[in-house]
Structure formats: structure tokens, C-alpha cells
């Protein structure tokens, strides 16, 4: 009886399988549609505030960090490799843009070598580091980031040392330099959208599923023929390249970079991770939501609290982070997804 039942089920599935989209699989197309819808909403919101230069600065930072955290999430979230060295890729982007600008190469073109350099560096450094698992990998990447900070101060020819580098104010689209911060906000929104689309594609592709399999159970992944190191390196290279692109935009926004601005562990390196953590590590939209929450909050706290007790905004931020780590392990987006699932199950049962 039981056997007959399963037989009919499987023949039924075989008969209509070709047309019915498989259950339990979100397609790239639907994720991409969500990304574009969200971007349109954010675009409209940005237009509303375009007159306020102060607000536009916050908005530009928010979108930039949304893109950066999403890029980090590809290897850190999907792949579960908690890299603390993404500031290095960010700095590679920033310094490449600055140096090439001096040579007369515009930042749009500089994106290509910046991304290639970061990806190459990521592969070379990660190769040995991927022998370490879990927190040990994280610690090693932290050491790499610290080392690069020292080297950036030392190699003055490339980085301008601790005095930093700056580019002259030559406004124009081809120079990626704008007088109106609103235009930077648009640029950063464009960046965040592109990174989100790439992340959505990866998430719903062979690479994305392999990264998640590697994160969940390495032995199981190997047993279905996945080369762990190759998958991790691919994810890391892609993540590094996208981070470097953000570094180029950031450098052209500030028009000034020095080692602490690009390579600071607390202000840059850890921030990608924190934003992803609060929004929801390993989810597609977690880093975006995290950036929308954290970056404006941080600016506001800094504006209102820093005068009262210097540094107190960091205490509030740190506190909220600890709360998130304790009670929201899958971040805001993870919580929302859990609640939705619970409702779905309740209505079915």
C-alpha cells in the first residue's frame, strides 16, 4: 500500500516535473526583482532628502557600507569564513584609485585593476589561511590586516605614508568627483545595487550553494565532490574584488586617504562584519538592512552623544551589538524570516 503510494507520487512528479518550479528553491529572478524594487524605494527616499547635504552624507555612507557588507557576506556569510582582512581589499581599491588618478587614469577605469589586484591578493593570502578553520581563520586574517596597516605606513611611495594622499577637486562624472553630495548618494546606491544583484546571483547559483555546503558541513561537501579550497578561494576572490570597488568609490568621495581611514580594524575591517551580523549574516538582504539601521544610528549618536560624554556613542553601539549577538543570532532579517516561517506553519497546521 505504502509502496504504491510513493510510486504514484514519483510518477506524478516525473510527469509534471519539467514545468513546475521545484519547491524549496528561490530563483535568482525573484531575488533580483526584490533587489531592484528595494533600490527604487531607496532611490525615491534619496530624492526626498537631496537638499540636505548633511543627510546626503549619511545616506552615501549607508549605501556604501550596505554594498561593502554585502560583498563581505559572500565569503563571510554564505561561505562562513569570518574574514577580518576585508579592510585590506578596501585599501587596495582606495590606493589603486588614488595612484592611478595621479597618472591621469580616471577612477571608472581604475575599478578594473583595483578589483583584479584585490582578487589576486585575496587568493594568494587566503590559500594558506584556509587551512585554518573557524575562529582561527578569523584571528589569522586579523593579523594580516594589522600587518598591512603597518606596511601601508611604511611604503610611502605607494600610500603617502601616514600623511596620506589626496586628489585635487576636479568635479566631473569622468573623475567620479561631484560637488553635490546627492550625486555621491546616487553613486553609492548604484554600487550597493550592483553588489546586491551579484550577491543574489551567487546565492542562487552553484557557487553559492557550494559555499553554504562548505559552511554547514565540510565532510558532506567533500562527499559530493566539492573541492573545499577552490570554492572558498572563488568566493573570497569575488568578495575581495567587490570590496575593492567600494574602496575606489570611497577614496573618490573623501578625495583623501591615509592608512587609518582605509585600514583601521575598528572603523573599517570589523564594521563590514558588524553590519552583516546585525542585519543577518548569510541572508541576502541582511547586510543592507544592517547598514540602513547601523550607519544612520551611528551618525546620530555621534552627533548627539559625543558632546555629552566623548566616546559614549561607541558604548551604545557596542551594547546594541552585544545584545544582537546574544539574542538575534541570525540578525534582524533572520528574525523576520523565522517569524514568517512560524506563521506559515501555524496556518498550515
Amino acid at each position, binding site marked *: 500500500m505504502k509502496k504504491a503510494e510513493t510510486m504514484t507520487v514519483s510518477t506524478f512528479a*516525473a510527469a509534471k516535473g519539467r514545468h513546475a518550479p521545484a519547491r524549496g528553491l528561490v530563483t535568482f529572478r525573484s531575488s533580483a526583482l526584490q533587489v531592484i524594487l528595494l533600490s527604487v524605494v531607496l532611490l525615491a527616499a534619496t530624492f526626498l532628502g537631496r537638499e540636505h547635504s548633511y543627510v546626503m552624507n549619511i545616506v552615501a555612507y549607508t549605501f556604501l557600507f550596505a554594498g561593502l557588507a554585502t560583498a563581505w557576506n559572500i565569503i563571510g556569510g554564505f561561505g562562513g569564513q569570518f574574514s577580518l582582512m576585508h579592510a585590506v581589499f578596501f585599501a587596495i581599491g582606495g590606493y589603486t584609485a588614488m595612484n592611478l588618478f595621479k597618472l591621469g587614469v580616471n577612477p571608472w577605469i581604475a575599478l578594473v585593476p583595483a578589483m583584479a589586484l584585490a582578487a589576486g591578493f585575496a587568493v594568494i593570502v587566503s590559500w594558506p589561511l584556509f587551512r585554518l578553520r573557524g575562529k582561527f581563520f578569523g584571528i589569522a586574517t586579523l593579523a594580516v590586516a594589522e600587518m598591512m596597516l603597518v606596511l601601508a605606513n611604511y611604503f610611502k611611495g605607494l600610500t603617502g605614508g601616514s600623511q596620506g594622499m589626496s586628489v585635487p577637486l576636479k568635479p566631473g562624472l569622468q573623475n567620479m568627483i561631484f560637488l553635490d553630495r546627492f550625486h555621491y548618494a546616487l553613486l553609492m546606491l548604484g554600487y550597493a545595487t550592483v553588489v546586491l544583484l551579484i550577491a543574489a546571483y551567487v546565492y542562487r547559483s552553484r557557487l553559492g550553494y557550494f559555499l553554504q555546503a562548505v559552511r554547514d*558541513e565540510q565532510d558532506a561537501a567533500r562527499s*559530493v565532490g566539492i573541492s573545499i579550497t577552490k570554492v572558498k578561494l572563488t568566493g573570497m576572490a569575488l568578495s575581495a574584488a567587490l570590496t575593492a570597488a567600494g574602496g575606489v568609490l570611497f577614496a573618490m568621495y573623501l578625495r583623501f586617504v591615509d592608512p587609518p581611514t582605509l585600514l583601521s580594524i575598528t572603523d573599517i575591517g570589523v564594521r563590514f562584519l558588524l553590519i552583516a551580523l546585525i542585519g543577518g549574516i548569510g541572508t541576502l538582504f541582511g547586510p543592507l538592512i544592517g547598514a540602513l539601521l547601523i550607519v544612520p544610528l551611528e551618525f546620530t549618536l555621534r552627533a548627539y552623544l559625543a558632546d555629552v560624554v566623548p566616546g559614549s556613542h561607541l558604548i551604545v553601539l557596542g551594547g546594541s551589538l552585544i545584545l544582537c549577538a546574544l539574542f538575534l543570532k541570525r540578525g534582524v532579517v533572520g528574525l523576520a524570516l523565522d517569524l514568517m516561517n512560524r506563521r506559515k506553519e501555524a496556518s498550515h497546521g
Partner: protein
Amino acid sequence: MADMLLNVEGVTKRFGGLTAVNGVTLEMRKGDLVSLIGPNGAGKTTLFNLITGQLTVTQGRVRFKGQDVTARSPEERARLGFGRTFQIAKTLTSMTTLENALVGAYHRHHDTRKAAERAMNCLEQVGLGRRAGVRAGLLTLSERRRLEIARALALGPDILMLDEVMAGLNPTEVDDIIHLIRALHAGGLTLLVIEHNLKVVRALGHRVMVVDFGTRIAEGDPETVLSDPRVIEAYLGKKYA
């Protein structure tokens, strides 16, 4: 000789002073169904891991489809046609049931849509079709075991190796899996099954290999092997042999 699939030639594994597997030889042809039995700690799972490459051999060779795979990594062996499950189910808990099978199916199809179709068919085969959209971390033990089989099947392996897929299941669930194994075997798949439960071994019939203290102590059809005094001694002690 032409249809010889797997040759395990005198493999030995030592962990320091402990010899877990000692010179075991096993030959399997295409379409064979072999049960590997033995008391706790006999070295069954170690032998399994030596065959699939999770562990490297101290001595001996493993040949698969005529190739020497002794030095190959587990992922290379998987691509050559080894499908396996783990004794403690290694479920990809944050992914859905379908996505679990999908990572196996990608081996056959690069295209996600086609791979998903294949994965879905494998889930239907093990009776998990209805659970496709559920996060695999929420599956029951029996469902996880079946998911392990589906994931390995999605690879389209030449040999499927099941490591105690029935441990901890209730009798109805065990019957379901016996049906499944028989159906897969009838479909021409080669299977190597580690089993603890002698009732199951009898039900599966076919060839049985008994391992104790890392050595092969008997091999043959279930009735002969299970009445072999050495096997009874290994399971029940000298008194009953």
C-alpha cells in the same frame, strides 16, 4: 574481470599503536549488494572511510573502475562515482531539503534548474518530496538519514555506500529503507551497506562480509556466514559458538 568495480586490496589502517583495519580485501562487481557487519569497534566505519578517502590507508590499495584511487581525495573519489552517507547524518542544516540534494545534483548538471529537477527526483525516490522546501535542520532523524541517501543518489554514483542508515530508526522506518535499498539494487546500483542489525542483513540477502578487530573473519551468503562459529563468537562470545 571487465565488470569489476571496486577492489580493496589488503588495506591496513593504524592509528599509532592501534590497528583499526588489518589487511582487509574486498572485491565488488557492478550490481553487487554487500553488507558489511561486525561488532562495535570492529573497524567497519574506518574501512568505509578508507574506501571513500576520508582517511588515508597505512598499507594496501583501493582500485575503482580499474584506476588506483588510493591517493585520491574524497572529493575526487566522489566525482569518480563514490556516493556515501555518514553514520552521524551530516545534514546541511541551514539549507532546505531540496538544496541539500541540489549540491549533489550539480555534479550532473551545471544548470541550476536541471540540477534542481534531478534533486527533486532523488527526494521523491526516498519519499522526501513533500519536505523539499523545509529547512533541513528541522527534519527528523529518519528523514535526515533518507536525505543523506538522496544527496548521494543525486551525484549519480556507480557505488552507493550506506553507513548504518538504519541505526536508531523504528521498525516501520527500517522496513521503508530496506524497500528503498532493494529498489535501488533492482535498478542496477552497486551497494555497500554497513549494518548492525542482523535481521536487516538477512532481509537484504546477498553477500555478507564480517569484520572483527579490523580483520575479515567471514564472507559469503547470509545463512552460511551467520551460522559460522567465528561470527557467532564475535557477536555473542565463545560460550555460544
